């Protein structure tokens, strides 16, 4: 089974044998890969009951819950990594979620679709409509993405909060692209953060 590109980046950069909390773990694809290939002790949090049932059905430890409200239940420093993939922009309080990730985990992986990608900009600039793209496929009234964020917005937030960036990866389609122009050319960003 092949992982989504952002998940493949995360999977390749998690230390073997570590403890991982995957927030918004979906059906557990990343957790299963981490468990099977890197001997990771993985736990998950997922909102959707069907996804939780699927993940538990494949033998993973997943709790049904909401990143906005249920991360508070996890003790400080209880994981090596907290992972939030494609979920930050759906939370009610992304900044608090980010702080919780770095309270619970020594490191945090965060991936999100970049709202400043040129195609998104073009759609808004020339079409005058909220963008519907490959990574943002749902119309404005139905999208779960309530806090759109750009690469530069995210960099500014972590700098403001004194959070360290240990690594960053940028994707356009399945191809990686450079950091310098990432805010314009990356469809998708992955950051590795530390407290």
């Amino acid at each position, binding site marked *: 089974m092949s992982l989504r590109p952002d998940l493949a980046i995360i999977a390749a950069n998690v230390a073997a044998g570590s403890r991982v909390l995957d927030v918004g773990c979906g059906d557990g694809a990343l957790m299963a890969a981490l468990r099977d290939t890197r001997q990771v002790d993985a736990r998950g949090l997922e909102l959707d009951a069907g996804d939780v*049932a699927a993940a*538990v059905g494949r033998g993973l*430890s997943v709790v049904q819950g909401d990143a906005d409200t249920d991360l508070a239940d996890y003790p400080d420093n209880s994981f090596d990594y907290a992972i939030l993939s494609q979920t930050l922009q759906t939370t009610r309080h992304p900044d608090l979620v980010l702080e919780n990730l770095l309270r619970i985990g020594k490191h945090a992986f965060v991936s999100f679709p970049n709202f400043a990608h040129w195609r998104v900009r073009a759609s808004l600039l020339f079409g005058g409509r909220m963008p519907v793209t490959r990574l943002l496929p749902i119309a404005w009234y139905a999208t779960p993405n309530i806090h759109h964020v750009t690469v530069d917005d995210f960099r500014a937030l972590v700098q403001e909060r004194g959070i360290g960036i240990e690594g960053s990866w940028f994707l356009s389609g399945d191809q990686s692209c450079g950091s310098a122009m990432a805010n314009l050319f990356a469809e998708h960003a992955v950051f590795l953060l530390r407290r």
Partner: protein
Amino acid sequence: MSVDPRYGTGRSVTLPGPLRLDGGVLLSPVDIGYETYGTLAPDGGNAILVCHALTGDQHVASEHPRTGKPGWWTRMVGPGKPIDTDRYFVICSNVLGSCLGSSGPATINPATAKPWGMSFPVITIRDMVRAQAMLLDHLGVDKLFAVVGGSMGGMQALSWAATFPERVASAVVIASAARHSAQNIAFHEVGRQAVMADPKWRGGDYYEDNDPPVAGLAVARMAAHITYLSEAGLTAKFGRKLQSRETKTFGFDADFQVESYLRHQGLAFVDRFDANSYLYITRALDYFDLAEEHGGLLANAFKGADTRFCVVSFDTDWLYPTSESRSVVHALNAAGARASFVELKSPFGHDAFLLESPELDRVVRGFLQAGVA
């Protein structure tokens, strides 16, 4: 293996004990009615203890001897089922205090040669678990691959993990709670008072005349049965429909279908259950507060536990609502335990755990299989 008289359906054993109860009494001997299904692996590593609910029994997947009905969890336990008796050695025992072969108020007190009645010591969920541990010793089962239970059975599963963590590899806790709430206690008190208000109860000494307080027990069951259902479920099933009549009778017969249904539930129950056992087991449930047993902090109950947990609730269960399961999960997370939790959708309220639920089957099957090395 089948020649070993300890294994099979319809078994019972009298263990010498003594069993030290939470109330301070030493109980001896200890009778336990139980059943086993499947074959114990040579290394003993495939044993699953299924714990039954308040009025359940050991006939989890075999015909009930008094009612002739199929076992109460045949959709979960059996060959090829999520708790697969082709793979696992499944044990189910009648809880202490009950009335289908285990020591309880209806059994004979050896000191007086008469039924215990209300002189039977008050028991707790943990006492039930300790009695089950004695049974496992008798069966040659050192460590459980899993302990599984719904409702009061889930409380036993939690109590197992807290009391004998080294003997439990995994625990499945369905539609349950780590303590009885004020509302839970209140409903039980209504039931107990209904039994005790029946003149036939006579302080619990009704065995020798064989004239039990069936009216009181039936009312207790009717009240309790409402808590096992959901309002939406009752409305869908009965609404305001009348029972075998065109109009209201302007009397107090069971005009409504829902009345007729509850009366039937009450009457069917008294044929298979002892009124005093109902008092004792509801008391054990009311006393249950796992946090209280661990310095007021539920997480302490699971500290350092190597047990894997799977907690399941149902969205329409108002007897043991999702919030109770969440507080268990919160404690498990705080203790660093490996825990899974899911709230499943069902229109059927608390009873959902006993009914057809492909999602529950999938969760239980997958969770158990993940524990197979």
